[in-house]
């Protein structure tokens, strides 16, 4: 975050010696803040003050990379607390938990279930990106290594939940090239764990009995030179987990406390205590507020469909509305003889309209225009959804060559385009559809 003149002034020598060429230290501080003068122009700025300045100017939150290749994910790196202030940049990622205490049968079932949820939503692959592999000391290291190997077979980012440095080292030997996360540092083992990750070059997850102990451990690891860290939200209660997650993020971004500026891991499986619907609620909650990795007991379609929708919404850049690819979208098995409806490429419009069309059960073709990602009325007002733009789009895409039906429904909100379209596209019968998408079902059924 850029420093204000005032922050620099507070660190300045306040001598007004003019040796830097500025009349006062305040004027100098202002120029440094604007970037027009280097801090080195002042002979009296102490090294400590310069270090403090450099630190303060660094991004408030670390960007941590985990995984490799097409399974590499970037976590953290946020600069705002609310999406409307700029945008959130790195999505929450979801992990499903396995534990070496589980029966083989349960593990096989879980592994299969992890692969089940995998679909596309507006050009984004939705699936469980990570697998949390927890070590149960009672079941022994051998069984754990077996589990790690099996989990690695899924080709997802692994999170190794191990607090024993020896076991951690052996497990990392199996999978460190895929850059997993070692989640197991705490106040009593952090030095050894730091040595383990130093050798393997992977990120280290840190826990504490409470938020202060966690803070001290993070600070101690930073002192050892490790800034490739994540922190675990307190799992004593939902309230405690929310407190850690929000307060750490806020301390980093608003109050410039770099020690808090790491991505978070929230174990919602622990917090939900076996209540599936509560787990669904918690996944949504920590996606909204500052969870970087959420660890779930399981993730089926019922939970995933709304969850990935929320995530896609939360992490959309407010400056760039979500767009769908313009073109012909056949619905309910619509073929070249099916009726055509046209609308804009604003993702929300597409979703609502296509949802209603699907509900109608009537085979049809939804023709999505290139309208700059704006809604019907907005794009119409901006001249991006006009009779000429529609006619041009139909020509460019050769719609008439691809579809034989000559019935075209236009959104009721732009009923005024009917006459102009009839003039520009004389082969087509232009029909005005209802103003609201919810009325489409009745409209289509009535037409049949």
């Amino acid at each position, binding site marked *: 975050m850029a420093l204000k003149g005032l922050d620099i*002034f507070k660190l300045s020598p306040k001598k007004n010696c003019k040796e830097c060429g500025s009349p006062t230290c305040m004027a100098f501080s202002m120029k440094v803040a604007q970037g027009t003068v280097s801090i080195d122009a002042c002979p009296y700025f102490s090294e400590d003050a310069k270090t403090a300045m450099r630190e303060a100017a660094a991004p408030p939150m670390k960007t941590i990379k985990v995984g490799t290749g097409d399974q590499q994910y970037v976590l953290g790196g946020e600069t705002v607390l609310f999406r409307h202030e700029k945008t959130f940049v790195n999505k929450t990622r979801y992990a499903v938990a396995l534990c070496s205490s589980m029966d083989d049968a349960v593990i096989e079932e879980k592994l299969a279930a992890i692969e089940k949820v995998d679909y596309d939503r507006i050009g984004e692959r939705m699936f469980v990106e990570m697998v949390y592999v927890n070590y149960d000391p009672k079941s022994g290291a051998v069984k754990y290594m077996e589990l790690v190997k099996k989990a690695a077979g899924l080709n997802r980012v692994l999170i190794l939940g191990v607090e024993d440095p020896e076991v951690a080292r052996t497990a990392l030997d199996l999978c460190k090239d895929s850059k997993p996360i070692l989640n197991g540092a705490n106040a009593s083992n952090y030095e050894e764990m730091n040595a383990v990750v130093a050798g393997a070059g992977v990120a280290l997850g840190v826990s504490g009995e409470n938020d202060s102990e966690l803070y001290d451990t993070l600070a101690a690891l930073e002192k050892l030179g490790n800034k490739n860290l994540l922190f675990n939200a307190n799992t004593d209660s939902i309230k405690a987990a929310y407190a850690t997650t929000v307060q750490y993020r806020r301390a980093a971004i608003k109050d410039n406390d770099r020690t808090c500026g790491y991505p978070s891991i929230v174990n919602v499986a622990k917090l939900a205590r076996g209540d599936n619907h509560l787990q669904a609620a918690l996944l949504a909650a920590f996606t909204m507020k500052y969870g970087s990795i959420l660890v779930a007991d399981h993730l089926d379609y019922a939970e995933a469909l709304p969850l990935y929708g929320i995530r896609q919404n939360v992490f959309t850049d407010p400056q760039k509305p979500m767009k769908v690819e313009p073109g012909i979208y056949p619905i309910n098995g619509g073929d070249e003889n099916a009726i055509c409806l046209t609308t804009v490429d604003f993702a929300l419009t597409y979703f609502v309209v296509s949802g209603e069309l699907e509900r109608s059960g009537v085979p049809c073709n939804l023709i999505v225009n290139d309208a700059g990602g704006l809604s019907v009325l907005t794009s119409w007002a901006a001249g991006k959804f006009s009779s000429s733009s529609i006619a041009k789009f139909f020509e460019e895409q050769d719609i008439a060559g691809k579809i034989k039906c000559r019935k075209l429904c236009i959104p009721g909100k732009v009923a005024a385009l009917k006459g102009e379209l009839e003039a520009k596209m004389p082969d087509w019968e232009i029909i005005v559809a209802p103003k609201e998408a919810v009325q489409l079902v009745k409209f289509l059924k009535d037409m049949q």
Partner: protein
Amino acid sequence: MGKFVVIGERLSVTAPIINKAFTERDPEPILKRAKQQLDAGAVYLDVNIGPAQSDGADLMKWAVQLLQSEFDNVPLALDTSNKAAIEAGMSVYNRAKGKPIINSADAAGRIEYLDLAAANDAICIALCNGEGIAKDNDERMMYCQTLLERGLEQGMEAEDIWFDPLFLVVKGMQDKQMQILECIKMFSDMGLNSTGGLSNNSNGMPKHIRPIMDSALVAMAMMQGLTSAIVNPNDLRLMETIKSCDILKGNTLYADSYLEI
């Protein structure tokens, strides 16, 4: 960004009717003017009792209690060169609706007003002026630095020091106007709050011109980052301009009725 803070200037000994009311401890004219200003959108009311050398302490106490009891602890700016009167005013001040403002310190004889503000957790207006009018912005910023350092040394938060560039009259000092506006930009770049007697610019102009000049200046000054002004809130054109600028700056959320609230 916070909303622009309008400090109503009309409770002043420079107005004969108010001067008389202060002297006679007559509540009616004071409450009437206070209400007019609050209804028009003033956030703070400036209480200028003048030098008030003989009975300043008693008068300020009376005025603070009168206004705060009538108008739900309205926040006030205590404006006098009598330090004891300011202390007395603060001793009875209720800060439920906002810290008191001390009006004002300068970089010469009145720098210790900052100490007073620090000791009482008050906001202090800091006039970037020494003896006589500053010749340029280098000099203004020198005073600004002196005042800021003093305040910080005394334990104040920088945000509680509201820097006043000293608005100058156009008739006679037309060539200084852009300097003042640039000075406000410097305060703003430093992350400092600012205020001042903005309508001073139009002193001596025909009465119908003044709201036009004041509105133009407040718009330009708000663009430069001015965060407050001591003005006449019953100047409708000025208040409409301030409210509109607050919308454009995102300090308040737009609604069709924004001028009415």
